[in-house]
């Protein structure tokens, strides 16, 4: 395919793609996300075969898409243009779908979603309450595009944001727009992306780098992978716009090595973007050059930390370094390096094409836009949702999550994995907000929400997190290496009935030292979940120690 050399040519290309399409042609979109693909391997070829039997080759498109988000009810199959949505589709269902729906234009009733609460059926995907109640600005296109085909992204207006940035705006204006939108980093801290970009842009070194943090090491966080695998060009477009604003000509994608589909889609996207002249030298004829390299985490948690990640990109061991100078000033090879996570970059194109004013209307006063939340644990539905900031946790757990299974009661929700915080059920009305949640001790983190029922022992959970961190600590600094290990020992003793008076105070003391003295945020935030649990569930710790009793009846030695 020929290069695109101007904004007008991009628009021409888009119209060209649309004109070749028949809007009434049937398209079977099969979810190929992580959850669905494991359950229906080979479904695409079964569809193709079945269509062949009905002599429909070429008359119906079959598209493998990224994650649709409602993983619990997967595998998903959506038939466009009518958007007929089937849930829990197995290989055996394929002949019936082809015969009934594709040939006969009938809906296969038994595969249609039924709302467990009301018994109502929803034939179209967008009528299912799970989807209807979301604001899917980032994830919404996942069912509608084949992530391996740049044309499908272009057809939906892809790279229009980049085109606008390159031809209608100066780098300063792009930066200003991101600052005005108050886009905050989605990776954990919620640091304003615009300020970070500005720091890198204004740093004295001429060579600057931009990085996509696609490490997503936080257990239970799978929304970034769902987004990046399903719509890689969205993230890439955001990255190129950011590079233009910052003045960077080399970017890095740092991502997981263990997701073959993600890797394949990233590589295809980079190749196609380069062929189309959207990446590489003289992007779209604007004179702006930008290239991207892909690097991998190779199974280590701490390499998601910014300085460790940058050492890893340099080809070194991923050990964090002290950040007296921020990585946005001195990062990879000592050059200013701006790191944002997948979701942050994915927000950039829409802010540029629709404007910061529009973006500011979504969310709360200080947390703008939408947030992807993955939720799991003791909850009826596991999946990814995209909701505006300000949505209450109750809405997420009961509305989208469908409540707690087996008639159990909610005990707590836990945000942010091993470095996050838990909130008791009584605080379930708290709205989703960076600052609001941080204030009550539950940092959003990357947005992985674990739902815990009454059978969960909070002491054991604290031990579990501490064990995870002790295994993942790189061992470079003593406070983290030793402090976490000692806290793990104490917590293990408590769960085994060997807790002593004074253990809680000792845990608090070690927590304070580790929190102050550890080198990087892995160590500094390691005590966070424990301290939160001591705050809200102190009586459980005391019952374990003083009465040798586990109130949740979970710890085996205490029953």
């Amino acid at each position, binding site marked *: 395919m020929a290069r695109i050399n101007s904004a007008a040519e991009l628009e021409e290309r888009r119209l060209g793609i649309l004109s070749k399409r028949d809007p009434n042609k049937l398209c079977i979109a099969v979810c190929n996300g992580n959850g669905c693909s494991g359950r229906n391997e080979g479904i695409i070829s079964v569809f193709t075969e079945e269509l062949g039997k009905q002599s429909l080759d070429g008359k119906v498109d079959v598209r493998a898409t990224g994650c649709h988000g409602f993983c619990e009810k997967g595998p998903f199959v959506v038939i466009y243009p009518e958007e007929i949505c089937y849930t829990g589709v197995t290989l055996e269902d394929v002949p019936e779908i082809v015969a009934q729906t594709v040939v006969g234009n009938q809906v296969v009733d038994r595969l249609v979603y039924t709302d467990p609460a009301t018994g109502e059926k929803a034939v179209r995907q967008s009528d299912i309450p799970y989807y209807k109640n979301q604001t899917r600005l980032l994830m919404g296109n996942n069912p509608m595009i084949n992530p391996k085909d740049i044309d499908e992204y272009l057809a939906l207006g892809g790279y229009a944001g980049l085109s606008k940035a390159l031809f209608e705006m100066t780098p300063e204006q792009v930066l200003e727009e991101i600052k005005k939108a108050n886009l905050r980093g989605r990776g954990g801290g919620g640091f304003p992306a615009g300020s970070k970009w500005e720091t890198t842009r204004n740093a004295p070194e001429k060579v600057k780098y931009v990085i996509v943090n696609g490490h997503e090491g936080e257990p239970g966080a799978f929304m970034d992978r769902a987004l990046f695998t399903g719509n890689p060009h969205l993230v890439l477009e955001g990255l190129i716009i950011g590079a233009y604003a910052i003045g960077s000509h080399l970017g890095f994608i740092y991502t997981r*090595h263990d997701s073959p589909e993600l890797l394949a889609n990233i590589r295809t996207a980079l190749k196609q973007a380069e062929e189309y002249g959207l990446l590489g030298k003289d992007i779209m004829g604007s004179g702006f050059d930008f290239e991207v390299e892909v690097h991998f985490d*190779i199974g280590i948690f701490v390499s998601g930390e910014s300085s460790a990640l940058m050492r890893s990109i340099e*080809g070194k*061991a991923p050990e964090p370094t002290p950040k007296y100078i921020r990585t946005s000033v001195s990062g990879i090879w000592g050059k200013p390096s701006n790191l944002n996570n997948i979701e942050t970059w994915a927000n950039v194109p829409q802010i540029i094409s629709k404007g910061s004013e529009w973006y500011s209307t979504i969310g709360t006063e200080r947390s703008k836009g939408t947030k992807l939340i993955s939720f*799991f*644990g003791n909850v009826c539905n596991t999946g990814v949702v995209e909701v505006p900031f300000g949505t209450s946790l109750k809405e997420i757990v009961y509305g989208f999550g469908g409540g707690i299974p087996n008639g159990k009661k909610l005990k707590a929700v836990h945000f942010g994995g091993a470095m996050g915080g838990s909130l008791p059920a009584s605080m379930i009305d708290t709205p989703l907000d960076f600052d609001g949640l941080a204030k009550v001790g539950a940092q959003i983190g990357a947005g992985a929400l674990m739902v815990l029922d009454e059978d969960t022992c909070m002491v054991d959970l604290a031990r*579990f997190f501490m064990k995870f961190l002790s295994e993942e600590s790189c061992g470079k600094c003593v406070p983290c290496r030793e402090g976490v290990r000692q806290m793990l020992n104490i917590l293990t003793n408590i769960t085994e009935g060997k807790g002593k008076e004074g253990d809680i105070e000792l845990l608090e003391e070690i927590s304070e030292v580790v929190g102050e003295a550890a080198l990087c945020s892995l160590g500094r935030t390691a005590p966070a979940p424990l301290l939160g649990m001591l705050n809200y569930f102190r009586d459980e710790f005391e019952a374990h120690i003083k009465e040798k009793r586990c109130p949740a009846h979970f710890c085996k030695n205490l029953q």
Partner: protein
Amino acid sequence: MDNAAIDHIINKYQGQARFLIQILMEIQEENRWLPREVLKTVSEKLDVSFRQVMRIATMYKTFSLVPKGHNEIHICMGNACHVRGAERLLKEVQELTGIKPGETDSDGKFSLEIGCCRGNCCSGPVMEIGGKTQDKMSPAEALKNYE
């Protein structure tokens, strides 16, 4: 793994030392583990000290310095799988295969690894064999398919 194969991978990265991690990763993908003499060759060709190569090869958990079994079993120990019984699953697989995490059985059929979140929390507790999720199957049934 012969020198030509190693050269082929190193040349893909123009012999640049900063791509050490990618190079080791590709070698492991092809060879399934990293033998000492291969690491020595890499060290010489990239002009990186053997000490540094070993440091990288031992620090990143996915790299293996011992041969791996024909079928790699991976059990997720992330918190979503933890609350759904990952420990029980691990115990059962250990009993069935007779190996512990990090080990390979004597006939080289299986090796067992534990790790963290593969992003497939809805199917938890997750066991993968050869990169494929074993969904809705007992460990015994799943292992039988790979015997």
